[in-house]
């Protein structure tokens, strides 16, 4: 006879429980087994000092980025490339176009892309310490960036990229104030 497993009761939302019961049925598993697997995963996530909800959100946002063609590369190498590049209007325009494409991608993927944009930017633009997207009255939207550890050119290119994103979302840039690790971008809804 196997040892008797000691059990304890925990409280859950009934709608969530119903979904889990459905999955358990489909997978031919007991509810007890599936719940323990999930909670064990939650404990594993906690070991890396993250909540399982944070990790699931992070995964979803990263998936959006990767599906859009973004890839991971060494930051110092990107900086070297920027320093070696012919830093000119053409390059800025390329970053604007890349942003514009990404904005269109978000428009195609989400019903309200501007609502998901802050989470995407703060989760996926790893070189930025802080990103804030704020929509005010009269169709004005501000994107404020704090990134003390990146150089001016990279921040300017990031600014151009965001201008491209916002342009695709129906906003034109009316102000771009970028100075030593801080960028304040102001946009106005296009008529």
């Amino acid at each position: 006879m196997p040892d008797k497993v000691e059990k304890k009761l925990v409280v859950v939302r009934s709608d969530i429980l119903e979904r889990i019961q459905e999955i358990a049925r489909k997978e031919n598993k007991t509810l007890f087994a599936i719940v323990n697997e999930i909670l064990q995963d939650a404990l594993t996530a906690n070991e890396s000092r993250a909540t399982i909800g944070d990790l699931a959100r992070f995964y979803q946002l990263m998936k959006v980025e990767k599906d859009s063609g973004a890839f991971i590369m060494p930051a110092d190498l990107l900086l070297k490339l920027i320093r070696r590049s012919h830093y000119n209007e053409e390059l800025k325009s390329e970053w604007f176009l890349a942003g514009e494409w990404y904005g269109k991608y978000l428009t195609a993927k989400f019903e309200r892309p501007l609502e998901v944009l802050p989470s995407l930017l703060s989760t996926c633009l790893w070189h930025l310490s802080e990103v804030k997207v704020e929509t005010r009255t009269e169709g004005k939207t501000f994107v404020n960036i704090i990134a003390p550890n990146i150089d001016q050119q990279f921040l300017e290119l990031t600014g151009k990229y965001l201008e491209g994103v916002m342009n695709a979302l129906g906003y034109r840039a009316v102000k771009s104030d970028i100075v030593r690790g801080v960028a304040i971008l102001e946009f106005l809804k296009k008529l």
Partner: protein
Amino acid sequence: MKRKFLAAKENVADRVNEIAKESGRTVFSIVNEALGAFITAKESGRTLSSIIEEGKNAQIARNAGMILVPEGSYDSLLESCAITPRIYDGWKMAGTVFGKYLYVNEIHEDTKGVETALKEVIGGNPDVTLSKGKVVCISPRLGVKQTEAVAAFLEGLLQSLNLTVTAKEVSKGIIIITFKQEGE
């Protein structure tokens, strides 16, 4: 909001209870969050543990000084500057650093773990296979220069794991590297 009771293993429930106390949250919110994340994972055809693993790999990449770059932006930079072998040295060095991070995180001896980590950091949704003495990476979306960069990255990673590269074949979107243990 209706609530129901659910049975869990006592030791697991106790640990969840401890975490709730440590983090100032309720057991109710932690359990709902975990079950909700499980449902989200299922809906996107994934398992919860694979999502946790990917999240961990992305954290490793971020801590190793990597950055997420829009594909078009990188291509425009490559075109606007002279590519020198030093650029590829940089990629190789990045691979070495990433390999060390895998070592520190005890992933280096787990073939599947290394494959998953590489899929996470190499662009273009690649198919990566690591077998005894050989690593194959196929990603048709990678351009020629990007493929060469990834090949240099893989070479650095293998070297950092004390593996000696014996041959390397690189063509657009395809990398085949053979290697042996140092001293073999």
